[in-house]
């Protein structure tokens, strides 16, 4: 069990991605890194940045940085949400695309590129569901 937003969690996420054949197939041409940002609110006292670098069907690096060290990476895409929304997405209670269009999940980056990789994005969510997650209360 790993706490969402920690290096343990994002490492477990990387392992889940790299074990997924479905993700590998769907994302074989994907090149692009992300910040998954958790906004301040509830038990989250400081904005958290999970860095995930995805390349040709694999995850090649993960990291966790803070507000002070966020300039360490300049990812191509940023997805930002409250901890409650991340949880709903991870537990498949809300469709991530629907969360994006209703602005519960904010996406920055080339939309055209994301829209060509919908299947990969869905498989990524399936990988998240593989990680046994504890949410900060």
């Amino acid at each position, binding site marked *: 069990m790993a706490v969402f937003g920690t290096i343990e969690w994002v490492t477990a996420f990387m392992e889940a991605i790299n074990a997924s054949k479905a993700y590998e197939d*769907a994302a074989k041409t994907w090149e692009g890194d992300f910040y998954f940002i958790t906004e301040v609110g509830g038990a989250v006292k400081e904005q958290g940045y999970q860095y995930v670098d995805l390349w040709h069907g694999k995850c090649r690096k993960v990291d966790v940085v803070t507000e002070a060290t966020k300039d360490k990476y300049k990812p191509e895409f940023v997805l930002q949400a409250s901890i409650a929304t991340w949880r709903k997405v991870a537990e498949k209670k809300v*469709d991530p*695309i*629907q969360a*994006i*269009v*209703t*602005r*519960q*999940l*904010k*996406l*920055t*980056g*080339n*939309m*055209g*590129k994301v*829209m*060509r*990789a*919908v*299947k*990969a994005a*869905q498989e990524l969510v399936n990988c998240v569901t593989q990680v046994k997650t504890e949410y900060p209360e």
Partner: protein
Amino acid sequence: MQFFGVPFTVFGDESLQYLNTILGKRAFIVTDKNITKLGLADLVITELKKANIECKIFDGVEPDPSIETVVKAAGIAKDFKPDWVIGLGGGSSMDTAKSALVCYVAGIGPLDMSPSEFYNLRSKAKLMCIPTTSGTGSEATWAIVLTDVAGQRKVSLGSYETMPDVAILDPLMVMSMPPQITGDTGIDALCHAIEGYTATWRTKFTDGPGLAAIRLVFQNLKKAYDNGKDEDARKEMMYAAHQAGSCFSNGMPGLGHSTGHALGGIFHTPHGRAVGLFLPYTMEYLINGSEEAVGLFAEIARFCKIGAGDDKKCALALVDAVRKLAKSVGQPLSVKETGIKREDYMKSMPDLLDRSVNEMMTSTVTRVPESEDLEKMFTYAYDGKSVDF
């Protein structure tokens, strides 16, 4: 949290006169050469002039508008600084107008538009759409479909901010549509309403417009196709397309659109014809594996007085009625009938699959197919074979 967005809608005879009541300084009209040639743009300008609004026309929109066309239109808008952007035409012109507005106000490229970003578009201009076809319903949706010409694919974009402020449905604008376009676009409207009504994003707010639109299409499309001068049928089809637009814009389209987009991106089959062609096959696929879809199709059938008996019988009767209507308005019922050669089609299968699997609409249905099922569906649709899996 869920949303339901609609524009302020002006409809019926002489609706264009609404234009002389609006406030503004400059209107940027986005349209195509055919519309200017038919004199429809002049009708719009005449009314806007009465409101002392200066007009500028961009009539360079092509069918399946490209990213480049949007960039060009946005560039003109940037110099002209309109406070109204007006999409006048079919889906292509309306979608170009929506994207040009975003690029003009936000200073970004069309592909950088994010549905979760707030661009405060109304700080510079409002958006109006005036359809000249009855099908895309783009005047009632926030959706934008552009074509990545080099990549041979359609790109779906948009955000709730690209929902038009005003839609004007003046029957005068659709009276000159030739039968082929009447058929193609009318079937698109049917597809929007059936898919929106049964999508996983459907809500209590999409039910009403969905059902109303489907019934109107069944009652009026053939009449409008057979006799373009039938004003009542034209009018009702215009309303049907609009309501179908608000149904699928808020409820999402489905598999007919994801497979149809894939076909259109590669073989340039007109949008309505492509999505309508796949609609009955995808409905059969849903019926074969989703009780929920069976129930929803049965609701539609009963509302439209199609078929009888249990849910399954009604659902299948609806599929049959869709095929009959499509055939009666000049639509191909199989890919073969569109003239696409079998060898070209089969050679393109990996691309068809890659595109359809990566369409958001593939996952907003009650039975989500994997690649294998999509491939079978594409193959069955080529020969016109009913989906039995």
